[in-house]
C-alpha cells in the first residue's frame, strides 16, 4: 500500500472488509455453504470431574463457572424447546462437573436440585439425582443446613415421602445456624403429610428464606403459593356449584348461570388472571390449559 495515500488505503480496507461481510451474509442464506452442524449442547467432552480438575490447572473456579453457565443454558434451552421427547440428559453430568471443580459452589447444588427435581417436561423429573447432588454438597459442607432442608423438600414435594422429608427437616433444624421453624415443620410434615396447609407453610418459609439469602428461589416459591391459592379457590368455587345444584336441581351450564342467580359476582379467575374452566357435566372446576399456573400439583394422601 502506498504510504502517501491514506484515503485510498482506508477505502481499499473498507472494500475488503465489506467483501468479507458480504460473503458471510451469503453464507447465512445458503444452507449448502454453512458448516456441518454439530450440536454443541449435546457434547460433553470430558465426563470425569477429576480429569477436568487436573486439566483446568489452577483455573478450576473459572472452568466451574463455565460449566455452570452451560448447565443453565442446557436447562433453559431444553425447557423452552417444543420438541417431542426432549431430554435433560446432560443436566446432572454438567452439575456434577461444576460441583467437582468448585465444591463450594452452593447455588449449583441448590438451584441444580430445583432443575433436576422439577417434574418433566418443566424439569428433568429426576428427584433422585437432585438428592444425590445435594448429598454431595452436604458431604463437602456438612454444616450447611440449607442442603439438608432442600433434601427434605425434594422428598416432600416431588417424592411425597413425608417420613424421609420430616427426618431431613429435623436434621436440618438441628444444624448450627438453622432457622427455628425447621424442627416444627418436621413435626407437621410427619403428622399431616402432604396436605395443603403444610405445603403452604413449607413454601411460605421458603419464600421468607428466599427474601434473605436465596433471591433465585423467590419466583419458584411465589409460583407454588399461587398454585396452592388456585387449589383453595377451586375448592371454594366447587362448593358454590354444589350449593347452586342443591337450590336449582341441576348443574350450571356456564359461569353466567352462577352470576345471574347471584352465586358469583363475575367469572372467577385464577391468581394469574386467567379465567377458570368449568365442566358443566360434573360440576368440577379446573385451570385453563393455557394458564401459567397449569398443571397444578397432584395432592396425595399422607
Amino acid at each position, binding site marked *: 500500500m502506498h504510504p502517501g495515500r491514506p484515503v485510498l488505503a482506508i477505502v481499499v480496507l473498507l472494500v475488503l472488509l465489506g467483501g468479507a461481510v458480504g460473503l458471510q451474509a451469503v453464507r447465512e442464506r445458503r444452507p449448502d455453504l454453512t458448516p456441518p452442524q454439530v450440536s454443541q449442547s449435546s457434547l460433553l467432552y470430558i465426563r470425569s470431574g477429576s480429569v477436568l480438575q*487436573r486439566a483446568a*490447572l*489452577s*483455573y*478450576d*473456579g*473459572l472452568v*466451574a*463457572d463455565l460449566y*455452570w*453457565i452451560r448447565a*443453565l*443454558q442446557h436447562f433453559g434451552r431444553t425447557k423452552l424447546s417444543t420438541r417431542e421427547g426432549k431430554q435433560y440428559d446432560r443436566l446432572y453430568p454438567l452439575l456434577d462437573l461444576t460441583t467437582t471443580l*468448585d465444591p*463450594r*459452589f452452593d*447455588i449449583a447444588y441448590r*438451584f441444580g436440585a430445583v432443575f433436576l427435581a422439577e417434574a418433566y417436561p418443566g424439569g428433568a423429573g429426576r428427584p433422585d439425582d437432585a438428592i444425590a447432588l445435594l448429598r454431595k454438597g452436604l458431604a463437602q459442607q456438612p454444616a450447611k443446613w440449607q442442603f439438608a432442608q432442600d433434601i427434605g423438600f425434594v422428598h416432600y414435594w416431588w417424592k411425597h415421602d413425608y417420613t424421609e422429608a420430616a427426618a431431613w427437616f429435623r436434621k436440618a433444624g438441628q444444624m448450627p445456624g438453622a432457622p427455628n421453624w425447621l424442627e416444627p415443620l418436621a413435626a407437621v410434615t410427619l403428622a399431616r403429610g402432604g396436605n395443603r396447609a403444610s405445603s403452604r407453610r413449607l413454601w411460605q418459609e421458603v419464600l421468607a428464606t428466599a*427474601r*434473605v*439469602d436465596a*433471591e*433465585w428461589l423467590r419466583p419458584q416459591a411465589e409460583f407454588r403459593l399461587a398454585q396452592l391459592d388456585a387449589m383453595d379457590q377451586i375448592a371454594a368455587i366447587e362448593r358454590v356449584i354444589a350449593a347452586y345444584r342443591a337450590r336449582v336441581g341441576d348443574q350450571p351450564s356456564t359461569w353466567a348461570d352462577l352470576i345471574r342467580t347471584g352465586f358469583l359476582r363475575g367469572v372467577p379467575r385464577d391468581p394469574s388472571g386467567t379465567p377458570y374452566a368449568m365442566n358443566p357435566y360434573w360440576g368440577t372446576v379446573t385451570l385453563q390449559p393455557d394458564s401459567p399456573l397449569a398443571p397444578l400439583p397432584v395432592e396425595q394422601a399422607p
Partner: protein
Amino acid sequence: MTFRVIGRVAVNVFKESVRDKVLYNLVVFAVLLIAASFLIGQLTAGQDVKIIKDLGLAAISIFGLLIAVFIGIGLVWKEVEKRSIYVILSKPIRRHEFVLGKYAGLVLTLTVNVVVMTAAFYGVLAVMHWKTDPAIRAAWSVSALDPHLLVAVLLILVELMLVTGIALFFSTFSSPFLSAVLTLGLWVIGHFNADLRNFDQVLASKPAIWLARGLYYVLPNFSAFDVKAQAVYGLPVAPGYVAFTSAYGVLYLAFVLGAAVTVFARRDFK
C-alpha cells in the same frame, strides 16, 4: 555500583516494554471485566460477583503468565540476535548485572501490570457492590470488596516472578520457541505436583516411584501459589502459609536466577 547498574538496565527494560505496547493488555483486561460484569448477570442466576472474582483473578494470572513467558524468553535472546549484546558488554557492565537488570525490569513491568489490573478489578467489584440492593448485599456470605482477594493476587505475583525467572533462565541458552515450550511445560508440570507425590498409589516400580518423588521435590510447585478459590469464598489463608509459600518462591527464584547468571557468564558470544 552493582545495584545502580541493575536498576538502569531494569528501567530500560520497563521503558522498552512500554514502547512495545505491552501495557495495552491492561485495556483488554479492563474491557473484558467491564463487559463480563454487564453480561454475566444475565447468564448466571445471581452468581455474578463470584464469577467476576473468578474471572478477574484468572485474567490477572493468565495475562501475567503470557507477559512473563513471551517477554521473558526474548529478554536476552533479542540482544544476542540483534548483536547489541557486544555493545552492551563492552560497557562497564558485568554479565550478572545485565541478566539481573533484565529480570528486574520485567518484574517491574509485571508488578505495574498486576497493580493496575487489581485496581481495575476492585473498581468493577465496587460498582457491582454499590449497584446491588443493600438487602441482597447483606445476605452475601462474602463482600464483593473482600480483602482476601489481595492475598491471592500477592501469590499470583510471586508465581509470575518465578515464571519470569524460569523464562529468563531458558532464554540465556536456547531459542525463544524452545524457551517458551520449556517454561510453559514446567509451569504445567508444576501444577500437577500433587500427582507426582502420589505416584506410589498407581505405580509398582520402586525406581519410578523414587523418580516421581524426586521430581516432586525438585520441580517448582506452582500449585502452592494457587489460593484463588479460598480468596473468592473469603476463606482465611493463614499468614504462615503465605509467608512460607512466598519464601519458597523467592528461594527457588534465587536458584533459577543463579543458574541463569552462571550460564550467561559462561556463554561465548564470538
